[in-house]
């Protein structure tokens, strides 16, 4: 009897919440789950591999350049005799970190601009969203190239430039969501109770948008990795001898006929990681945003 509540409805079984439940649901989407496991392994390998494989990525051995796969160099060596496995790991660190932090800045800038424009409306909305649209109409890859040429090519600059040329999409998505939730009854209730604007925005509106932001961030990392690689490939990104997957690719193009594997390895790394992030993003969208219909 105590299990019955006022409306005669039996209590629901205790719902499993949090991460375990989340991964159980994610596991149902095979591609997304495989992508997730793959990304986990790649990140573990890239960031922890250096403790197992201790060869420096910058130790040059010209006598042993363009070596094929041996037990000493499992993935061979490059034109300067540097160990390719070590360079892939260290290059991956830079590439993935640049991807991650670019995404963080992208989400921060885009999220704040979108939420503020949508929530406050009026002239704030007009100024911010027209600015967003203006930014979208500039071919942002070329803007990034120009900015890097002018501002220098440190990893931090690369992160900033990627972020400031790719926040617009998130701003628009967050803007739309904010407009939608701003009209909801619980937001009005909160205002009626005397909640101030900041509290309403962060307690009531932002939490509703977080799933959308998570999806956008996952896809954003993929985009940032791709952009970083493209910029580095063009020689305008992070400069050698610091390895990134993008500048490894650039370096490899001179040996495309003699040692094609030098290009294939970083290229494959970029492609697979970007693909996995995209699959994971799609999987998360199905999971977190049930209203989104696949075309």
């Amino acid at each position, binding site marked *: 009897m105590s299990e019955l509540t006022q409306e005669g409805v039996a209590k629901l079984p205790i719902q499993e919440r949090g991460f375990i439940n989340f991964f159980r649901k994610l596991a149902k989407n095979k591609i997304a789950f495989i992508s997730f496991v793959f990304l986990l392994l790649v990140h573990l390998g890239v960031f922890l591999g250096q403790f197992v494989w201790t060869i420096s990525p910058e130790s040059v051995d010209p006598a042993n350049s363009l070596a094929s796969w041996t037990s000493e160099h499992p993935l061979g060596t490059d034109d300067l005799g540097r160990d390719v496995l070590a360079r892939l790991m260290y290059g991956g660190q830079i590439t993935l970190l640049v991807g991650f932090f670019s995404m963080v800045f992208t989400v921060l800038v885009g999220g704040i601009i979108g939420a503020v424009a949508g929530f406050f409306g009026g002239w704030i909305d007009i100024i911010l969203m027209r600015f967003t649209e203006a930014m979208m109409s500039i071919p942002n890859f070329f803007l990034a190239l120009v900015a890097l040429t002018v501002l220098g090519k440190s990893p931090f600059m690369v992160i900033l430039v990627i972020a400031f040329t790719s926040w617009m999409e998130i701003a628009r998505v967050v803007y739309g969501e904010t407009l939608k939730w701003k009209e909801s*009854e619980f937001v009005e209730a909160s205002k*009626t109770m005397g909640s101030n604007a900041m509290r309403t925005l962060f307690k009531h509106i932002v*939490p509703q948008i977080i799933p959308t932001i998570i999806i956008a961030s996952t896809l954003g990392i993929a985009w940032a990795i791709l952009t970083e690689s493209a910029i580095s490939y063009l020689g305008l990104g992070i400069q050698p001898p610091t390895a990134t997957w993008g500048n490894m690719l650039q370096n490899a193009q001179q040996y495309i006929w003699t040692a094609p594997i030098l290009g294939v390895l970083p290229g494959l790394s970029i492609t697979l990681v970007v693909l996995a992030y995209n699959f994971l993003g799609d999987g998360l969208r199905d999971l977190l945003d049930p209203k989104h219909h696949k075309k």
Partner: protein
Amino acid sequence: MIDSVEVKLRLDDTQNQKKIILKADHIKKYFPVKSGILSREVKYVKAVDDISLEIFEGETFSLVGESGSGKSTLGRALLRIQEPDEGTISFDGKDITAMNRQQMKDVRKDMQVIYQDPFGSLNPRMKVIDLIAEPLDINNLYRGKERVERVIELMELVGLDPSRRNRYSHEFSGGQRQRIGIARAIALNPKFILADEAVSALDVSVQAQVVNLMKDLQKELGLTYLFIAHGLNIVRYISDRVGVMYLGKLVEVGNVEDIYSRPAHPYTNALIQTNPNPNPRSRREKLILKGEIPSPSNPPSGCRFHTRCPIASDKCKEVSPELREILPGRLVACHYPLI
């Protein structure tokens, strides 16, 4: 000697009963509508058009009317959730019409809202404890352990199991969610609650439970309700007095039983007659209203009801009737009241 004592007692009595908690004078709320891209003429939807009313402490005052009659807008204008365009509102003896945000925040502690939609009015990403404690948090009252204790107390008061306070609202049924909304509304011990279609979204069986809960809480906490509804049976059950609205105008006000048994305005009459009667043996001549409610952006001239009124005359087409007292406590806006 005895007479004068009696008179004095009666006066005291009426004064005690009839303390006005909310008084509205000539409230207007117009919504502009643009009639076309090129047209500069701005039309207005007169959602609330010059309404005055008084609500007494401790009573349940209901607003009834068809959809589009402006009853919700009036309720929201009275609490300044939507600012009225004209008119003055005084609450608990204070004029709140021109109060600023900070002053309103204080007044709002005493005037809370129960919303129609038990799904939309609760943030789906907040736990029940945080939902109910929201008014406490906003006003920085009760912290830490006291806050939990207050929420438990409130949950018990509205008939919810306090052990479920760390759940999310989607784990509750519609009626239980409405109880969460009620607990939130009474958290600050308010004097006045606007119940905006508070039970309309619920199943009939659950409606009765929630209405009974509201009645119990009213007795226990001395609440005043402004109850907005379109279900006439529930209004009859819960209300002390009723105001009938038609196209932004208040057409009749009076004690609930007086109005239900002897409606004075032809519109009230029609509304009550079309209400399904649970007694199958009662045979009443049904008066069905002709046509739809006219558009509030272009209301009829004179008495707004004359296009659908069975007893309208030429006078009704020209002269808008004022709300006047035809019997003590009974106000009607009609040239030819039925009583």
